[in-house]
């Protein structure tokens, strides 16, 4: 995830991820629109092909921020901090997508856009923590202190990711439990829907990887400009 060799241009792997993501995006959209409707929700269930990848990449991005924040604290190399902050930024975008699509999905199925149930509450807290991450970065002028403080938030904030994921099992909630359950390995989904969902998960993961690498590259450019 680190750009070091040719800092004046994004490296080949960044373009590969972005290219694959953009190329496969129409296929993901096609499979999502070709997948059968749900027996109870009808075509509404299709918002899942955006909602689930959004939430998954929010979680993944914050996990990457967690790992690179730890790496920064141990090695004190600003490159790790750049990846941590790039990933948090892209993670906020995807988490925001999950929240917005979730609200649009909730209104016609549950009957409300928002309710303070465990999954929604923990996810809202998660989102707010990473907004705070960037406010904190903006508030501290000393670069080294800024990186250290951000790393602390990047590490502590991640604690909420497993809580948010497990909230539907730990507490009574309105949100349904996982359809692809990573804790039991059970899948409660029609094969055609599963195929569309998995492909969209892969496509959006490529896009995430490309975005993070690109954002990391931009951050490196910014830093060099500041130093110069």
């Amino acid at each position: 995830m680190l750009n070091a060799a040719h800092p004046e241009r994004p490296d080949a792997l960044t373009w590969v991820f972005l290219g694959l993501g953009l190329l496969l995006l129409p296929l993901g959209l096609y499979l999502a629109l070709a997948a059968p409707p749900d027996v109870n929700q009808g075509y509404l269930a299709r918002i899942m092909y955006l909602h689930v990848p959004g939430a998954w990449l929010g979680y993944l991005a914050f996990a990457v921020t967690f790992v690179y924040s730890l790496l920064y604290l141990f090695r004190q190399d600003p490159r790790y901090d750049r990846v941590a902050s790039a990933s948090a930024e892209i993670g906020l975008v995807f988490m925001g997508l999950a929240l917005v699509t979730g609200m649009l999905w909730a209104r016609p199925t549950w009957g409300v856009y928002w309710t303070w149930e465990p999954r929604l509450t923990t996810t809202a807290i998660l989102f707010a923590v990473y907004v705070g991450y960037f406010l904190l970065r903006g508030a501290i002028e000393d670069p080294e202190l800024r990186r250290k403080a951000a790393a602390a938030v990047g590490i502590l904030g991640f604690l909420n990711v497993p809580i948010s994921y497990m909230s539907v099992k730990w507490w009574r909630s309105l949100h349904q439990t996982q359809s692809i359950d990573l804790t039991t390995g059970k899948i409660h989904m029609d094969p055609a829907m599963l195929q569309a969902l998995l492909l969209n998960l892969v496509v959006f993961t490529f896009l995430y990887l490309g975005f993070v690498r690109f954002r990391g590259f931009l951050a490196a450019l910014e830093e060099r400009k500041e130093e110069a």
Partner: protein
Amino acid sequence: MKPKYLLGLLVILGALGYMVFGGLGRNLVYFLTPSEYLQDQARYQNRPVRLGGLVKPGTVQYDKDRLELRFVLTDGVAEVPILHKGTPPGMFKEGQGVVVEGRFQGGVFQGTNLLVKHSETYQAPKAGWTPEEVRKLIEEAK
């Protein structure tokens, strides 16, 4: 520290505090089951609560003219009669899991908000739900 970011941080911390102590604290138990409610009725009297359970089959009555929806909420052990003012949500049906927000008044639970739970299982319908059929349904509803 730059003041504008400090202000933003305070807003975020305030929001987090509100969600953790105000929102989450109350919502660790998002809804009560009818049995839990009936066991500790005095505690919840005249207080807004959420009740969760299943719509008992055969008890749904909807008055189209007065927009009054009546049904019985059950958790298999205890039952609570519900009166909800408003149209039933699209996915509301008998046997469905629902959460009702409201309060008790004279033996009937007066719902102000009716939320429908749905399962995590997604299945293709055996027949129907083609675009043509959906269009026909929409036309009929007009």
